[in-house]
């Protein structure tokens, strides 16, 4: 397809890789924030190609992975109710809660449906007036405009049997959490292209200045990532710390203003818990007071449910780039995509799942030889 195939051009990718290796005079650690980028990097072995010069750290960039346990528990609880049609993106179904997952709830007779867009859930609500239709609104800033629109239209059209279970997380506070951690190893960031398509990149400037770290807004194709890395390397080599935009074909400095306007009407910024990381202040969206009637937590009385996380899983350290998936003792053994212990193994954008899919054998060999 136009713009996709061209960005996977092998020869050009090799040219970029050579340029990176030539220009990097010492090793650098660069973190990609988005799980979509992690997937591309591992799939096309970009980290392997650059291995001698660049360490690519995989950041907290998969909303499925960071959705806290209790939200999954709340989702399961709501989905179990007989009058509810629970709608979600497919990758949320297998995320383990503290005792079950949505897939199991569905297998036991819960009406759990996979939808492509929150608008599909809204359509279902119109078509099933005797049922309560609940949409699991997870995601970064990228999915927020769509979810805001579904809630906005529900209110405008007076659809009262629709609600959303909101688990929105925001990228800049996550970057700040990574940078301010005492064990931080990240020297530059590839910022997530589609998050910035919505929000722009103004809000990264203070972060880049405060922590003296280059931040390059980057796309998702192999060439995008390689060019983003090259732009980071150039800044690092020259001692610069600026915000640059590699993904200018989609990202404008101030982002998508109509989308931000609707987000601003429907949501407000709140503190959020991140699975494996803990609570980060001002790091999520919740519904604004005017739209509280569409809040599934309030409607179904599950707002107070809280639970502890599994202690075996090191997903928190993986999410902050402190450890690689194969350093987890459970990796590929007790924890696999079929039986995930932690969320980074569930979604195929999670770092553990990406390593499991493309690197399992080498990872095992490497771990074996270290022992």
């Amino acid at each position, binding site marked *: 397809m136009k713009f996709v195939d061209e960005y996977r051009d092998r020869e050009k990718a090799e040219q970029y890789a050579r340029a990176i290796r030539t220009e990097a005079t010492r090793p650098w650690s660069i973190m990609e924030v988005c799980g979509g980028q992690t997937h591309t990097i591992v799939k096309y072995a970009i980290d392997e190609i650059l291995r001698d010069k660049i360490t690519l750290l995989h950041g907290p960039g998969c909303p499925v992975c960071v959705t806290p346990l209790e939200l999954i528990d709340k989702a399961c609880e709501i989905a179990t109710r007989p009058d509810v049609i629970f709608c979600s993106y497919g990758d949320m179904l297998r995320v383990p809660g503290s005792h079950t997952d949505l897939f199991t709830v569905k297998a036991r007779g819960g009406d759990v449906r996979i939808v492509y867009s929150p608008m599909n859930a809204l359509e279902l609500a119109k078509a099933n007036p005797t049922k309560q239709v609940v949409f699991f609104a997870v995601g970064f800033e990228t999915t927020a405009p769509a979810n805001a629109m579904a809630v906005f239209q529900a209110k405008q059209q007076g659809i009262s049997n629709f609600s959303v279970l909101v688990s929105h997380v925001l990228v800049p506070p996550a970057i700040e959490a990574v940078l301010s951690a005492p064990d931080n190893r990240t020297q530059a960031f590839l910022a997530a292209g589609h998050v910035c*398509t919505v929000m722009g990149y103004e809000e990264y400037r203070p972060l880049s200045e405060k922590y003296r770290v280059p931040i390059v807004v980057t796309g998702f194709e192999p060439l995008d990532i390689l060019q983003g890395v090259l732009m980071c390397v150039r800044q690092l080599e020259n001692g610069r710390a600026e915000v640059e935009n590699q993904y200018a074909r989609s990202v404008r400095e101030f982002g998508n203003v109509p989308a931000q306007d609707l987000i601003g009407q429907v949501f407000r910024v709140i503190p959020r818990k991140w699975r494996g990381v803990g609570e980060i202040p001002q790091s999520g969206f919740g519904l604004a007071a005017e739209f509280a009637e569409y809040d599934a937590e309030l409607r179904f009385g599950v707002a107070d449910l809280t639970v502890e996380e599994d202690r075996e899983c090191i997903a928190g350290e993986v999410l902050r780039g402190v450890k690689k998936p194969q350093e987890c003792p459970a990796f590929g053994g007790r924890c696999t995509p079929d039986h995930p212990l932690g969320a980074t193994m569930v979604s195929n954008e999670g770092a553990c799942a990406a390593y499991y899919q493309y690197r399992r054998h080498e990872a095992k060999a490497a771990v074996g030889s270290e022992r």
Partner: protein
Amino acid sequence: MCLAVPGKIESITGERELRSGVVNFGGVQKEINLAFVPEAKIADFVMVHVGFAISVVDEAEATTVLGYLQQMGELGELEELK
């Protein structure tokens, strides 16, 4: 989760939050909400995420990335290194 896919707008109907249209993704057509790209016209490429267009693709910028190495005049230098 955050991936968006480029497609070409084939038709546009409705206004404001109900503005929508048919977008063609390499042969597969889908009805997409176009409320967030009021500037988009028929034949424009848009990035689409969960049923919503979130930006119009700038074709000139799209070509820039592909030609970046040549533009920086590095291709020559790299050839010499071979």
